[in-house]
């Protein structure tokens, strides 16, 4: 049996619709963020496909009628070729636990699972390197805190949260979400955090990674508009945190801000409490929800600052952010005006 492989770019709407039809026939939902699909055809009919989205392989499916003919390996060869050509060498994929072996034979390794329904695999062994690097920053103590933040941008609300955490802990590890999917770039967010927290002494600021709220471990986090919360991905992200990252740093607590506005973040907080403390071979991590500080009767949040930026209300932003953040916003808005 011979199969014909072809690539379908993002721009080809008609052909993508055919992929969509095929995916539906095998009970899969097409991911909108797939950039390139590779499809295998037999007699002009799609019998298998797989997609590349950033560094994640998605929507990999093979029609029942052609299974057991080694098509999976041909498809993966083609898909990897496309990914490597695009310069994506360190790849991730999500799959069902019973397909673990298939992808293992393609060079992927198991990282973590969620609810026995989905597993995350990668074809590099970067998680081991990352864990080894983290170990250097370990501090011992009764309360070793952790915070994961996007800070889009860094506000006095964030600062308050970190201050509170530092007061209650021997040491605090702050992870900055690395994915560049926010209004402010990672570089800017990271710099503003470092500058805004310079004076805190028991704090390590870590650049995030693919293993902590990234498109690889937590794809739905970045499509908040859809109000799409996939509890499986949430669980996966938290399992990686508890089983892989926290043990390297001896983390005992995780601090989060109470979330009154964003459904995704709130859901994440609630699930976090449950998952990080449930019985497991790894030590529990206590989740502490901290209240937010308010200004003018409303909590200070990054989304509030972004909204004010849209409305061009610089004077209202001033009391919400540290001087370093304010300086950047002024700079960004004066550029906007020139445009």
């Amino acid at each position, binding site marked *: 049996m011979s199969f014909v492989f072809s690539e379908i770019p993002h721009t080809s709407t008609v052909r993508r619709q055919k992929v969509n039809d095929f995916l539906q026939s095998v009970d899969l939902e097409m991911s909108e963020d797939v950039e390139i699909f590779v499809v295998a055809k037999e007699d002009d009919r799609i019998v298998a496909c797989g997609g590349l989205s950033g560094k994640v392989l998605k929507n990999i499916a093979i029609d029942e009628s052609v299974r057991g003919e*080694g098509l999976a*390996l*041909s498809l*993966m*060869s083609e898909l*990897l*070729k496309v990914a*490597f050509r695009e310069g994506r*060498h360190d790849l991730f994929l999500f799959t069902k636990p019973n397909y673990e072996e298939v992808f*293992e*034979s*393609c*060079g992927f390794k198991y990282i973590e699972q969620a609810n026995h329904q989905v597993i995350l695999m990668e074809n590099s062994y970067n998680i081991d390197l990352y864990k080894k690097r983290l170990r250097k920053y370990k501090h011992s103590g009764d309360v070793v805190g952790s915070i994961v933040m996007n800070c889009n941008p860094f506000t006095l609300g964030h600062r308050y949260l970190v201050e509170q955490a530092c007061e209650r802990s021997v040491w605090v590890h702050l992870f900055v979400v690395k994915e560049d999917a926010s209004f402010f770039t990672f570089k800017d967010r990271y710099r503003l955090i470092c500058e805004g927290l310079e004076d805190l002494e028991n704090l390590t600021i870590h650049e995030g990674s693919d293993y902590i709220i990234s498109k690889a471990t937590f794809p739905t986090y970045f499509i908040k508009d859809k109000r799409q919360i996939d509890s499986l991905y949430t669980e996966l992200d938290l399992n990686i945190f508890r089983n892989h990252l926290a043990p390297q740093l001896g983390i005992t607590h995780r601090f989060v801000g109470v979330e009154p506005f964003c459904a995704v973040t709130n859901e994440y907080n609630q699930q976090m409490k449950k998952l990080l403390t449930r019985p497991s071979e790894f030590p529990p991590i206590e989740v502490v929800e901290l209240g937010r500080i308010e200004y003018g009767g409303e909590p200070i949040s990054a989304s509030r600052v972004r909204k004010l930026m849209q409305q061009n209300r610089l004077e209202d932003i001033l009391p919400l952010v540290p001087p370093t953040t304010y300086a950047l916003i002024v700079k960004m808005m004066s550029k906007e005006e020139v445009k």
Partner: protein
Amino acid sequence: MSKKLETAHAGTLESSDAFVRVIPINEKGIVIELESSVEEIYGDAIRALILESANAMKVDGVKLIVQDKGALDYVIKARVQTAILRATGESEPDWSMLS
């Protein structure tokens, strides 16, 4: 000879073939990671062959990740050579090295 290497690959995952990835690393030597469908019988022989092929091309500071699906020796050798050649970015190989 120590050339600057880039990440590269050659081959496929299909039966009787081998998929070879070359990844530059920040240490000396050649690291080999092999996964083979005939590991029990030929694992050591394949590792030796990969190392020999890589040494012959005088590369250093690389990791070779090989997924072998029961490829014959000359297939494995050719795939390793091609992957390394691509990693060095050269269009014309030094034929005498490939023997």
